[in-house]
Each structure stands twice: as C-alpha cells, then as structure tokens.
C-alpha cells in the first residue's frame, strides 16, 4: 500500500537532514508503528507521507502511484489525525465536523454515530472552546476517519486521553484494521505500539534501526525463562521467587514439585518489553 525507498528530508535553512535514507513497506490492512523519541523524525516522515512536506529525496509510492504525481484527490483516500487538537474554537463539535465533511467528494459516514462511539454525542452542540484536551483529541480522531479513508495516519493518537477513552480509540483502530484499512501510527508509547501494531520501526536521529513484528522483537530479546513467585509455608508465608528454563519445562521435576506443593502467586515468562528492545537496539530511551 505504501512503499518508501531511500527517503531523505531536510528542512529549509537546515544543513542536516531530519530523515536520513529510510526505507520501509506498509502492506495493505496492517498497522505500522513508527517509534522513536521526540525529534527522531517520526512526525517529519508522517508529514512527507501526508503531502505536508514536499521537496524530499527518494521515492514514496502510495497505492501504486508516486506520491508526487497525486493531486488533491489523494486526500479523499487518506485520513490524518494530528498530534495536537486543531479545531475552530467558536464552532461546535458537530459544526466543525460538518465543515470538514463538506470538503470531501463523497458523503461522509454518520457523524452522529462517530460522535456517539467516542462519547461526544451529548456534547455535539457544545463549542469546542469549552472542550478538554481529551475531548478535542477524540474529535481529531473522528475527523481522520469520517470519510472512510483507505489509509489512516495517526500521530500519538492516545495522547492526553484517560485510560477508558484511550481503550475506545484503540478498539476503533483495531476495528479499522479488520476492515482492511492500512494504518500508520507514530508514537513513543510502547504499550500502544505493542498492542496495536503488526510491524514497528524504531527510528532514532532520522534513521530506522530495526523493523519487525513486536512479538518477534520481544521474544528475540527476552530470556527463555519462567519466573515463579510463591508463598513459602515454611518461612512464615514470605514471598519467594524461582526461575526455570523454558526448555524441558514440562519435565522439570523441581518446577512440577513447586507447582504441586507451594502456594503459587504468579508465573511470568521473561520475554523483553518493547521498551527494553528499543533501548537495547538504539541505546536511547523514549522521552
């Protein structure tokens, strides 16, 4: 769906490139996560892909067509969710959506349904100047989806949201994926990336250092161990921990005996978190 080859982008009046020779491919119907610390080049890459930044070097193909040869019709096919909420403050939530909906060539999906899904229908007639940041972010989210685009770009989609609303938005993103939409997410939230993305790319200082499925990355970098925590009846029910190798675990007599004789409180496999993998690969922390 999207193919990027040797993309380089340098902002005007800057000597050094912000995005340096990156290449990746986003297959149709997948969620692709672009992960990296602030200033790594995530948003710049997204701005190139959404046509907000031109004069880039390299090649970007979208739906089999060079990005440079798309005209404004491109925006009938893509949806863009910005990192910061941007709406007309004096207009109501519904008026804002109706305004942007009027620009599309085909009718948008039911705005009432969308507002209802993200919990904003009761506030549809409220001016956006009275909205909290989280409410504005949810409105941003609808604007990116309301015209049923094939490709959706989100920049930190759960930023500023409480856990309940973040869950609602993440469920909608997964639902869109199951509808065959191709989704590009830039984030520094590893939990979101791990949960949502089919593939993630780590970007630091404008370069991609690794691309793979989050599960593969976690398994490759983790220890093949199981950590068992239990209450030891002989030591005043104090908590103890033991580690066992995954290999041959089913025949490990010590492990089996522990399960049968002790009060087990938790069993965890010791695969790495995505954040661990990121730090190990790039030597940088996500901020």
């Amino acid at each position, binding site marked *: 769906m999207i193919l990027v080859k040797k993309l380089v982008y340098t902002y005007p009046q800057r000597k050094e490139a912000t995005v340096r020779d990156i290449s990746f491919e986003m297959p149709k119907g997948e969620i692709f996560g672009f992960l990296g610390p602030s200033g790594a080049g995530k948003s710049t890459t997204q701005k190139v892909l*959404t*046509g*907000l930044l031109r004069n880039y070097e390299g090649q970007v193909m979208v739906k089999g067509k060079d990005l440079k040869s798309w005209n*404004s*019709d*491109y*925006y*009938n096919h*893509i949806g*863009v969710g*910005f990192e*910061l909420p*941007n*709406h*007309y*403050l*004096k*207009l109501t939530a519904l*008026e804002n959506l*109706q*305004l*942007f909906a*009027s*620009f*599309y*060539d085909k009718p948008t999906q039911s705005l009432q349904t969308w507002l209802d899904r993200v919990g904003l229908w009761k506030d549809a007639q409220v*001016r956006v100047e009275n909205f909290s940041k989280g409410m504005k972010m949810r409105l941003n989210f609808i*604007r990116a989806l309301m015209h049923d685009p094939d490709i959706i770009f989100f920049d930190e989609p759960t930023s500023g949201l409480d856990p309940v609303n973040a869950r609602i938005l993440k469920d909608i993103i997964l639902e869109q994926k199951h509808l065959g939409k191709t989704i590009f997410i830039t984030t520094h939230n590893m939990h979101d990336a791990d949960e949502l993305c089919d593939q993630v790319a780590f970007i630091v200082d404008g370069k991609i250092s690794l691309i793979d499925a989050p599960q593969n990355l976690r398994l490759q970098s983790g220890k093949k161990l199981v950590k068992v925590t239990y209450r030891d009846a002989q030591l005043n029910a104090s908590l103890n921990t033991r580690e066992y190798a995954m290999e041959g675990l089913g025949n490990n007599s010590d492990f089996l005996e522990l399960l049968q004789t002790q009060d087990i409180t938790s069993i965890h496999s010791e695969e790495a978190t995505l954040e661990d993998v990121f730090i190990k690969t790039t030597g940088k922390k996500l901020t």
Partner: protein
Amino acid sequence: MNTITLKKIVTLSKNDLRSIFRDKSFWAPMLAPIAILLLLRFGVPQLAIYYPEVNQYQGLILALMSCINAIFPAFFVSFIMLEEKDLQLFSVMRVMPLAPHWFIIYRISFITLMSFGFVFGTLLLSGLVALSLPKILALSFLIALMAPLTTLIIVTFAKNKIEGITMLKGINMGLALPLVAFLVMSPWTKLLAIIPVYWIYQAFDMSANFWLNTTIGIAYLGLLIAVIFRRFKNKVFR
C-alpha cells in the same frame, strides 16, 4: 463554478460568519462602520455649517472613512486567521481534498467581498460626494482591496493576536499619512505614492483623472497583494 465548489464556499462562509458573530470582542467593532456612516451622513454636514472650509475636504474625509470601514472586515478575518495559524488549522486545510491554495483564494475573495459591501454602503449612503454608480463601484473595489492586503500583512508577519492588534493600529494610523500630499505643497509629497492608500485619495481628487488614478491604485494594490500572498503561501500556509 460547479455545485460542489459552491457548497464548499457556502459552508466555509457560513462558518466564518459564525466565528465572527460568536466572538464577543468583535461585537463593538461590528457597529463601528454604522457609526462612521452616521457621522458622515449627519455629523460632517453639521460641522460644515460651523466650519465651511470642511466642504473642500469632504472627498478626502469620505475617502479616509471609507478606508477605515474597509479595514473592519480585515480586523475580523485577520483574527480568525491568526487563530487558524496558532492552532495549525492551515495544516488541516492542506490535508483536505481542495485544489492548491483554494482556501486562501476563498478567504481573500470573502474578505474583499465583505469589505466591498461596507465601502459601497458608505459611499452610497454618506451623501457627501456626488458620484456616478460606475465610479462608486470602481472606488468600492479599489478601497476594498485594502482589506485582503491588511489581512495578509497581519497573518504573514504577526506571531500572535497582540502583535496583530499592534500592526492593525499601525496600518490604521498610516491610512491618514498620504493626506499630507493635499495639505503641503511640495514635490516631495509624490514619494507618498508608495503608500497604497495614496492612490485612493488621488481617485477622490476631482481635479485629477479619476479612471487613471483608480486603475493605477487597483494595479498597485493588486501587485502588493500578490507579493504578500506569495510570502504567506511559502512561509505560513505550507
């Protein structure tokens, strides 16, 4: 113009008017053009009774007040656009399926039309200078061009609303500057021709060539608008 384009223009205009009317800080300035018109219609003739010399300057008074009235729409729209700039709404417009620069051209047209209405009303109803309808229409267009020029200057160069207000005050004060050319007899006053409003005053000079001055004024203001538009497009709406 097809139905879809017309629908987009109607929706945008409707929302621009909503944004203007819902902003309490615009309520007083909205009444100012009416106050100016009443002043011209009833105040200036009264003043002329006590100070008959006012009569010879009625054209210039009308020109200055028409320019001030033309600037009011620029004030409203500049502030909407400064908010758009601040909230990065221009980026949102750029990811909409609109032809390149369609939005800016719409805004310039919207403000010019609004300003044209204000000036046309002022020239037609002030009762100060007898002008034919073609001349009123030509002058209204010339003066209305001050609005997009002012808006583009403010939105391109002001970083925020405070700077916007300061610039607007500066522009308003500058409106009266070329009047010096009518009060001081010196060849140096020709230098004032670089100030766009100079050509508006020249068009009101009944002893000069109306159509020539109006055409030069429209061409000069149009050129300035084109130059600032280009800068706005490259520096702000990108």
